[in-house]
């Protein structure tokens, strides 16, 4: 049964890497929120794999990390919801959803082509 822990542990490592890449590369804030969640899920799965290795006494996994995972998922949801609300408010206020502060999005598009 340790096989499942190793397999999903490696999968989680790849998820964290993917999320970090997306967090740096994608300019849209919503994509960054998604990337943040992919990193978060990767960390959770890694933690879950470690918990699974701690299976003993008929428990499927170590109950302490599993309980902390539930806490973590709920907190990650709260953070995501707050970020999305901030983003929507920014969009309502400025009509754009961008993190670029130096220029309005239109002229940015021109600069990109130059």
């Amino acid at each position: 049964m340790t096989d499942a822990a190793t397999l999903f542990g490696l999968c989680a490592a790849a998820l964290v890497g993917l999320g970090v890449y997306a967090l740096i590369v994608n300019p849209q804030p919503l994509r960054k929120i998604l990337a943040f969640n992919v990193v978060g899920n990767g960390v959770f799965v890694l933690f879950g794999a470690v918990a699974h290795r701690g299976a003993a006494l008929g428990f499927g996994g170590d109950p302490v990390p599993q309980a902390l995972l539930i806490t973590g998922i709920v907190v990650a949801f709260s953070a995501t919801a707050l970020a999305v609300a901030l983003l929507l408010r920014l969009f309502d206020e400025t009509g754009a959803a961008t993190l670029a502060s130096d220029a309005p999005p239109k002229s940015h598009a021109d600069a990109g082509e130059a």
Partner: protein
Amino acid sequence: MIETFNAGLALLVLALAIWTVVARDTFAAVVGFVAYGMLLTLVWVQLHGVDVALTEGAIGGGLTGAMLIAAAARLRCTEGAARAERPGVATRLAAALVAACVTAALAVAVLALPEPAPTLANETAANMAATGVGNPITGVLLAFRAMDTLLEAIVVLFAMIGVWSLAPDRAWGGRPGPLHRADPDGILAYLARVLPPIGIIVAVYIFWIGADLPGGKFQGASILAAMWLLAVMAGLTDAPPVSRTWLRVALVAGPVVFIAIGAAGVATAGAFLAYPDGLAKPLIKVIEWALLPSLAVTLALILAGAPERPAR
């Protein structure tokens, strides 16, 4: 056979994660992410964390998915401008290098985990009898690590206050989110009439069995929040103005009861959040019953968004 299934599952999870990273269209990326969240529930089942699977299914698959899809559809018109901001090849290569290093470091850590694995299962099992509950996760959440659970309930409440604080001045105290209208005889209204009664029963069931089997207040509260929002989206009911006193009481009741019982523990059992001998199970039940409605209302209001309309 189980190894093959797990390998296929891990591959599909990775493929969907790659899709959410590389898809050009943000909406496509978000839908990929929702599918990925649903698949993660299977990963949790395979890692023998059924409690976690329930939470992921209710929050990751249901609430987060609905929130992100609605946001992506609303931000669709900003797509073109954002695409031009895409960083150059050098930045992307550097990012890929950083990501590869992170993955490699984590992979090495996974392969080098100590054998035999350290575990708190023995300590948990030895002390479960003192809590009176049968589900070890509930025991950890409400007895051994009760401080985490208390802070978590408060974090959720703070996130909701953060969402509220984004309200424009003129709408403060008003109703959150847009006004939803739908054909009262349409299929959406039908679904919103039939599903919530079943959903409430399932939520209470999941909450109720949480003492002895996988389940509990977070999962139950998420289902309740989703059912209420379904009725709101179908126009069957409206979100209450955020200035209502009963609403404020419902929001803080759970954390207040939790803190009060925790503080009583200082006097009766010698430590904050400690339970006196023999009273652990009834006190845990009181906390759970107080937290369930508070969490459900808080989660629902986080999703409903900042106040936008006057109360009238």
